[in-house]
């Protein structure tokens, strides 16, 4: 246990230089990119004097290096700064929208693994049969489908033609989110406030976005699970446990799947950033009030500090998840020394 804690501490320290490098790149790229917050705000025809005044107000007239040093100083005090467009702290919209993104991503992840792993196991056990072929076809097809197109198709089929699920937003108009909104995680909030009608509505709204995200990414996991299961099912210890009279189910799920999960968990850590990237598109497709949509909005407005803030939060989220993945890995596999 102490070993794990020490490892976690080390990893957390490592995220500092990582975020620093990432932030420097974003900082420079944003300012090198054509367009700036002032022209985004004032439009193209404002008088030069007004533009210069506004730029000076925002500190954009200083050299990039000076701006950078100012920003880092601010960041060192734990302050993400103020928006250049709206009169608000950068942390305000982020803390508002982050829970929506986390909720969507985690539900997408559940769908992704819930589909990918069992299908992969089934394909491996039914190797070279119709099942196997069908599952592999599914995996290859969804792997190729862009996430936004998948979203549009699901919206069209399940939202419009079948009229079975809502296609936008986190809650319906009959539910007042103010009644339960505490943490911003609607599933948790509605559960704790005992508002089960609202919980149902929240889950109902999650179905299409979560499946859009989950299905698209499940292809990789189907293929990975299948390949690893085929490998593990051939191994000596699987044969040995069969020879000891262990029933097939226990052999497959107890011994084989557990071993096959190790590379799957590794892949999960790697694919998490893809999941977040997919979430940005999914949020846009489903008008999901999350960080992805916020990021897109603020990129159009060239709201430098908010964009930087969002990138920092994304980076921390990804490194946090990969840290969890590593710890889970160490718990499952006794050979791993953290």
């Amino acid at each position, binding site marked *: 246990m102490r070993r794990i804690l020490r490892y976690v501490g080390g990893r957390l320290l490592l995220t500092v230089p990582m975020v620093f490098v990432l932030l420097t790149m974003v900082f420079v790229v944003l300012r090198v990119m054509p367009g700036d917050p002032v022209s985004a705000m004032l439009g193209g025809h404002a008088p030069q004097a007004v533009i210069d005044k506004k730029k000076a107000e925002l500190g954009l007239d200083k050299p990039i290096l000076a701006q950078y040093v100012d920003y880092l100083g601010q960041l060192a005090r734990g302050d993400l700064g103020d928006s250049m467009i709206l009169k608000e702290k950068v942390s305000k919209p982020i803390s508002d929208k982050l829970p929506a993104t986390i909720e969507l991503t985690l539900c997408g992840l559940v769908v992704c693994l819930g589909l990918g792993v069992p299908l992969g196991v089934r394909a491996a056990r039914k190797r070279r049969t119709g099942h196997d072929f069908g599952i592999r076809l599914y995996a290859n097809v969804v792997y190729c489908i862009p996430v936004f197109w998948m979203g549009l198709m699901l919206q069209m089929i399940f939202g419009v033609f079948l009229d079975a699920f809502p296609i936008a937003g986190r809650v319906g108009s009959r539910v007042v989110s103010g009644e339960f909104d505490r943490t911003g995680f609607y599933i948790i909030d509605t559960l704790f406030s005992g508002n089960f009608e609202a919980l149902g509505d929240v889950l109902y709204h999650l179905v299409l976005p979560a499946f859009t995200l989950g299905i698209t990414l499940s292809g990789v996991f189907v293929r990975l699970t299948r390949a690893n299961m085929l490998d593990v099912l051939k*191994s*000596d*210890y699987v*044969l*040995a*446990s*069969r*020879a*000891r*009279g*262990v*029933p*097939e189910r*226990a052999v497959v799920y*107890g*011994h084989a799947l*557990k*071993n096959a999960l190790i590379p799957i968990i590794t892949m999960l850590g790697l694919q998490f950033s893809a999941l977040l990237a997919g979430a940005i598109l999914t949020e846009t497709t489903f008008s999901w009030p999350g960080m992805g949509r916020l990021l897109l909005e603020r990129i159009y407005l060239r709201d430098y500090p908010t964009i930087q803030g969002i990138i920092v939060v994304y980076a921390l989220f990804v490194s946090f998840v990969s840290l969890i993945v590593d710890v889970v890995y160490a718990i*499952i*596999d*006794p*050979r791993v020394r953290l």
Partner: protein
Amino acid sequence: MAETEREAILEIRDLSIAYPISIGTVRAVEGVTLSVRKGEVLGIVGESGCGKSTLGLAVLKLLKAPGRVTSGSILYRGRDGAEAADILAMDDKSLLDLRGRKIAMIFQNPLTSLDPLVSVEDHFIEAIKVHEPSVPRKECLARAEAILADLGIEARRLSEYPYQLSGGMRQRIMIGLALILHPDLLLADEPTTALDVIVEAGFTELLMKLKRQYDLTVVLVSHNLGLVAEMADRIAVMYGGRIAELASANDIFEAPMHPYTRGLMDCVPNILLDQKELVAMPGSPPDLVNETPSCPFAPRCPKAMDICRSSVPALKDYGGRQAACWLYERKA
């Protein structure tokens, strides 16, 4: 003969096993008839690819796809002399009951035969609980400790994982897992191939001790003549999926009948003889895909006759021992 029939705890009758592959059908085992007598150590010897491991797997009905039994039966009678049952006709439930509890098997590679994510104690707990789910965890551990003591492994190893154990230790744990439920029959498939010579010597001794202690019948599958010579009471020599010769270990070593058995023996270096060179058997193992109506050993046999190339010799009795060779059939 009637006497031995009654003693047999396992009887393989006319067993043929085939693996359909893209270029044809590999006939890994062809018409093998063999009985295992209660309390004996039966050695099955042959080169790699002669069908000996396939035979072992078939006894537990664990053939790997696409392998399948094309004919024959495997009758299991058990130590208590109960009604014989055909293993190949058993349903899944009876098979699960048979595997591990009545017939146990240990495999060639001890390094990979334990689940790397499962501790030694959990291996034992699973092995027991699969057959006796009501046994409490504590008793499982007590039994495991007792058997580890017989195997010369300290009880503290129970909480360790396979990667923390040496190859020899893992092999002993495999035996412990196989014997924990006191099976009648132990199938040992190349049990020492992956071990070094020193460990192998210890292993042989241990297995013989356990055989007496646990009242075991052992089928020892190996290409290692030395190992089989040390342990086996009777030896079946296999070639090309068939039994070439079956006799007591003494007879096999003193007076091998089949030219293949003789050839095998010549290949083993003997430190007492002043051999300048090792003798290698000419030719290579038979092609099991293309069926030819001839003795499978004929192409490599120094004594091959015309008849050897045109028809297959049957396994015949020659005064308490059996051989499948035209050399003797004509004289008899």
